């Protein structure tokens, strides 16, 4: 889900930022009271997958051990991750107004832009994408338009 909310293309996305790692940590710290919503939301996601794509192949192993790269055994959870990208986008469009999608979107954004110490924004890819310098102290000039400012 995170990889579709902030996709990887010519520039890094949620995957490179390790947003999923951020969410893992968040769910046992500041966002622990959303655990139940994640459990239910992911179940609903799989039901939606089967509803919209009844003929879709079951889990496409992404690791040599079978299952996806998070270690879930094949055929169990995360069939959503087995869909083609365009199918994933289609499904997420269908649920984009749900509370669960809103929650995951918010956590994805947090995982992309928060301080790397929280587990996401790996190598500051989020900050680099938007040109945010984490110096936390600056001197003028700050930007293009005030560079040559001569005064009132």
């Amino acid at each position: 889900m995170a990889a579709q909310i902030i996709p990887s293309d010519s520039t890094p996305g949620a995957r490179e930022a390790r947003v999923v790692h951020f969410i893992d940590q968040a769910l046992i710290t500041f966002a622990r009271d959303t655990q139940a919503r994640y459990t239910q939301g992911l179940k609903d996601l799989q039901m939606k997958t089967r509803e919209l794509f009844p003929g879709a192949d079951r889990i496409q192993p992404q690791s040599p051990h079978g299952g996806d790269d998070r270690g879930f055994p094949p055929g169990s959870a995360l069939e959503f991750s087995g869909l083609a990208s365009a199918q994933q986008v289609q499904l997420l469009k269908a649920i984009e107004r749900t509370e669960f999608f809103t929650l995951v979107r918010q956590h994805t954004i947090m995982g992309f832009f928060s301080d790397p110490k929280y587990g996401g924004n790996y190598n500051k890819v989020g900050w680099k994408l938007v040109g945010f310098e984490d110096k936390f102290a600056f001197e003028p000039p700050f930007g293009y338009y005030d560079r040559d400012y001569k005064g009132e």
Partner: protein
Amino acid sequence: MAKFNTRTEVDFVVVGVGAAGGIVASELASAGFRVVALEQGPYMHEKDFPFDELFYHNDELGITNTRRWPSTFRRTDQEKAVQADTVNYTRCVGGGTATYTGSSTRHHVNDFIEGSLWGSIAGTGLRDWPITYAELETYYVKAEWELGFSGLGGANPFEGPRSKPYPMPPLPIKSSGVLFERGAKKLGLHPFPMPLAILSQPYRGRRACIHCGFCSGFGCTVGARSSPAYSDIPVAEKTGRLEVRPNSYVREISTDKNGRVTGAVYFDERKREVFQRAKAVVLSANAYESPRLLLLSKSTRFPDGLANSNGMVGKYLMFGGGGSAEGIFEQPLNDYKSVRVTRLVEDFYASDPKRGFYGGGQIDGRWGSGGPLAYALGGALAPGSPRWGAGFKDALENFNHTMTSNIFSTSLPLETNNVTLDPELKDAWGVPAIRVTYKEHPDDLKTKAFLRERQLEILEAAGARTKWAGPVREARSGHYLGGCCMGNDPKTSVVDKFHRAHGVPNLFVVDGSNFVTIARNHPTCTIQALAYRASEHIVRMAKSGDLKTSH
């Protein structure tokens, strides 16, 4: 620092150590009185503030928690109020000044005499203040020099008479300021540097701004943003007569059978109820909390709440009008750096009968978000931007190319806009929650629409390649003012021109609740000027034996 026993009858209890309370408590202690200043929140210092957006988003400091301090909202008394995040302000020593933008323009001369100038407007409380700009001017100077404001006196052609310049020059202009100035000048307007309660150079042992960008909404890591918590209070604490008691949540002002206040009842940090005795009480809890506290302080003599025999407590709540417009520019502004706002215009400040409605306001050029997290979560992305996916990521890349223009506009005082106690909801201490009833006058909405057009014109003239402004919305929150209005007539006001509650000789209210009309600019520096003036008068009354203090 002093430490008083709660059974000691100190001279003053000050409730709320924010923009006003921080000043009053300090001035009273410096004048020789023993003061206990009770603040519901903690006492934060520079080291408590990390450069961490998520930390603040999660309210790790616990200073804006609307679950522990819930409130309800309704538009009129015909509706049932529902829980909303209406009452949401910074709760710590310094109050709003610990995390605000610091915009510090003065009210204009005419802001104090709106009733005389415009005339009355049916159904509204548009009227004069009991004091004039001239009476307040030396106290504006005092606020600017004691707290430390940066600005350029005389640069604003619409400002009232000024007897002294600012103590230091304005902060360096940002790209948003350059573009705003460019656009405004093209239209024949008069942009000037925003005076800020932020040090542009070292001042009285305090450090200057380091342009870190973690400004409005964050605590200042170097103490450069001028809050009484950083300037007045530390000095006053050295007198040994001021005790700032944080984590002390006042729930009632107690009175004796003669109708004089005797002290304050508060919850300490372990939620135990404590009574601090005092010869006089100053309420500086803000325009939500001061009226609420009076309404909570019922007695046989004051069945409708302390100082509320005339039913005026809580009435005439005013939010001020707000509205944002955004522009995207070709080259990078990097406006996330440094302070929020460096330029504004007051060309549309005054009301103009030719417009066909009452009202006016201020328009500025600024950075409207916090850091990248706030930008991605918040409202500065172009309307119609995808909320996720490749298009969303593209929109995010406008982060460094964006600037915002904000307005501050008028709210007519309406008796039907008020603070009351919610009949059902209670906060985490079991105290009745604040219920806000608020619906703007149509002229307030017309004013916002008028200024919105002006914002878009300025952005266009500045060369924005894209620009937009959200639709004009009814205010459900804002800068909270009114509720314990100043006035000469005890039938229609809560405090007199010296901030003394009508009918309660040893009770004062000094904060944003005293505002009679809202003017068209950020209220804090006027609150602070009022606080310096009120302190002088309270000291005068105390020294002349009027309050039966020990001095």
